C-alpha cells in the first residue's frame, strides 16, 4: 500500500529557469503529462502540467495579428513564471489511499514524492493509482474469476468462506466485504483461481450462502 512501491522513481525533471518551449518539446517526446521542477540540489520548486502549458499559449483559433508574437514570447517564458508552486506532495511512506484522497479533493493528476529534505524521489500519477488498485484487487489477473456472495450479516462469514476454499483446495486470492449502499446489497467478493467456478459456487451455496449473479436485464 506504500506509495514507494507504486510510484515512478527518479522521474524526468526540469529546472525552473528552463523555458516553456523546452517543456513542450519534452512532453511531445514522452508519454507523461507532468514535469516536476527542481533546483540544482534536486529540491522541488514546483510542477507544470501539459494543461498549464496549453493555458499559457494563445488560443489556436485566435486571429489577432499579434498572435505569432505573443506565442513566441510565451515559448521563451521561464517555467518558474507558470509553474504551480503550492502543489500537493507526499512522502515515500504515504499510502496509495493518501494519494486517492488528495486526487479526489484537489483535481490534480500527479503528486511529487519527496524525502525529508524536500528532494524529489518520485512521482505518483492517477495512472499509477489505477494500476495499484488493479493489482490489489486482482483485476485482469490471468486464471481468476470473481464470485459475488450476498452478505447475510453472519459475523463469521469471512472465516467460513475461507474454510470452504481450504476444504475444496481452491486457490483464493482476494476476499472483500462491502457494506450495503442505497443502491446495492451488502456483498462479499471472492476472487478464485479455478476454471471450475461452479463447483465453488455450489460449495458456498451448500453452506447456506446466496451467490449473487447479476443477470443481464437486457
Amino acid at each position, binding site marked *: 500500500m506504500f506509495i514507494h512501491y507504486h510510484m515512478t522513481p527518479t522521474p524526468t525533471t526540469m529546472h525552473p529557469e528552463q523555458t516553456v518551449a523546452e517543456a513542450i518539446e519534452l512532453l511531445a517526446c514522452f508519454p507523461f503529462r507532468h514535469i516536476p521542477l527542481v533546483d540544482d540540489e534536486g529540491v522541488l520548486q514546483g510542477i507544470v502540467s501539459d494543461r498549464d502549458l496549453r493555458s499559457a499559449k494563445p488560443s489556436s483559433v485566435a486571429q489577432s495579428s499579434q498572435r505569432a508574437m505573443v506565442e513566441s514570447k510565451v515559448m521563451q517564458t521561464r517555467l518558474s513564471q507558470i509553474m504551480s508552486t503550492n502543489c500537493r506532495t507526499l512522502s515515500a511512506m504515504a499510502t496509495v489511499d493518501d494519494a486517492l484522497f488528495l486526487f479526489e479533493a484537489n483535481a490534480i493528476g500527479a503528486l511529487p514524492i519527496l524525502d525529508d529534505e524536500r528532494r524529489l524521489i518520485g512521482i505518483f500519477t492517477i495512472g499509477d493509482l489505477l494500476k495499484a488498485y488493479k493489482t490489489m484487487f486482482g483485476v485482469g*489477473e*490471468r*486464471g481468476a474469476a470473481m464470485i459475488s456472495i450476498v452478505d447475510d450479516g453472519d459475523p463469521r462469514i469471512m472465516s467460513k468462506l475461507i474454510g470452504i476454499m481450504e476444504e475444496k483446495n481452491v486457490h483464493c486470492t482476494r476476499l472483500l466485504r462491502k457494506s450495503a449502499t442505497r443502491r446495492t446489497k451488502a456483498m462479499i467478493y471472492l476472487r478464485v483461481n479455478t476454471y471450475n467456478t461452479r463447483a465453488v459456487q455450489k460449495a458456498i451455496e451448500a453452506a447456506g450462502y446466496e451467490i449473487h449473479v*447479476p*443477470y*443481464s436485464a437486457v
Partner: protein
Amino acid sequence: MRHGSSLILVTDPAYSRHDTGGGEHPEIPERLQVIRDAFDHSPFAQSIHILLPRPASRAELLSFHDEAWLFRFEEAVLSGRTYVDHPDNQVCYESYSIATLSAGAGLSGIDRIEQDAGQDIIFCLTRPPGHHAEANHPLGFCFFNNCVIAARYWQNRYGRNRVAVLDFDAHHGNGIQSALESEPDTCYISIHEHPSFSYPGTGWEEERGLGAGKGTVLNLPLPPGAGEEQVRRLLPKIRSFFEEMQPEALIIGAGFDAHVEDEMSGLAFSTPLYTELGRFIFELGRDFCSNRVLSILEGGYHLPRLGESAAAYIAGLLKDD
C-alpha cells in the same frame, strides 16, 4: 444438407485416455462420446468420415510454446504428477503424448482442407482443449494451444498468413490472444462471458491488439444471462471485422459451455443458437476464406446439451442455401 459435403471428424480413441482424475473435474472423456453419439443420431450421420490425426511434431509445438514448457510438461507426467501448476490441469502418465495428438488434429484437418479445396466440413473432436494454454504454462484444462498451433501450421505449411481465429467458447481464449495480438496478419475474435464474472478474467473489450497488431483483436464480452438476442447483435460486427481483415483461412474455437444448462458459465445460449452460429460461420468461410474453415472443440461440460449443441453447430455448417 449441402450437396456433396461430408463431415470429417478428426478424432482418435487415445483422446479418451487423458485421465483428469475423476471427482468433480468436468473435462472428462465422456464429453467426446456424447458428441459422437449425437452426431451418429443426427440427419448428417451418413455423411460422417473419420480422419485419424497425426501428433504435432516438436517443431510444430514450438511454433507457439517454449521448449522449457514442453520439457516441464513431459517431465511432470512421466514422473507421475497428477496435475501441472494448478489442480485444474489434471494429467495422467499419457497426457503429454495425447496432448500432442490433440494439437495434431488441427494439422491433419488443415491438410484435408487444402486437399479437397474446402469441400467438406472439418471438425476436430479432440481433448485436452487448448485455448487457455499459454506459451510457457498450462491453464484451465489446456496444455497445448490447439488453435494457435493450427494457425501457425496454416501459415508455415501453406503460406496462408492471414488466419482468423473465431472463438465462441464461453470463456475467453487468453492463450490465443497472447499468441496473436501483436501480429498484423492474424486476427482473433472472441465471444465470451464478461471477464469481471468469468474465468480466466481476461478478454476486455478495450483490448484490441498490441503494436503492429493493433486492431486485430475483437473481444465481445457478454453479460451473464446473455443469449440469442445479444449474440445476434454481435454478428454484423464480426462480419464487418472480417471485411476489414480479409482473412484467407478461419479456425473456430468451438466451445459449447455457453449453453444455458451448462453450469460452467452464466451465459444462456440455446441449442438452436449453435445452428445459427454454424450457419454464420459457414457464410464467413464462403465469403472470405474460400471455405477454408477448421473447427476445433474447446469447452462444453453439460453432457446431454454438449452433444446436442455440437450437432446443432454442425447442422448449421452443413445447412443448404
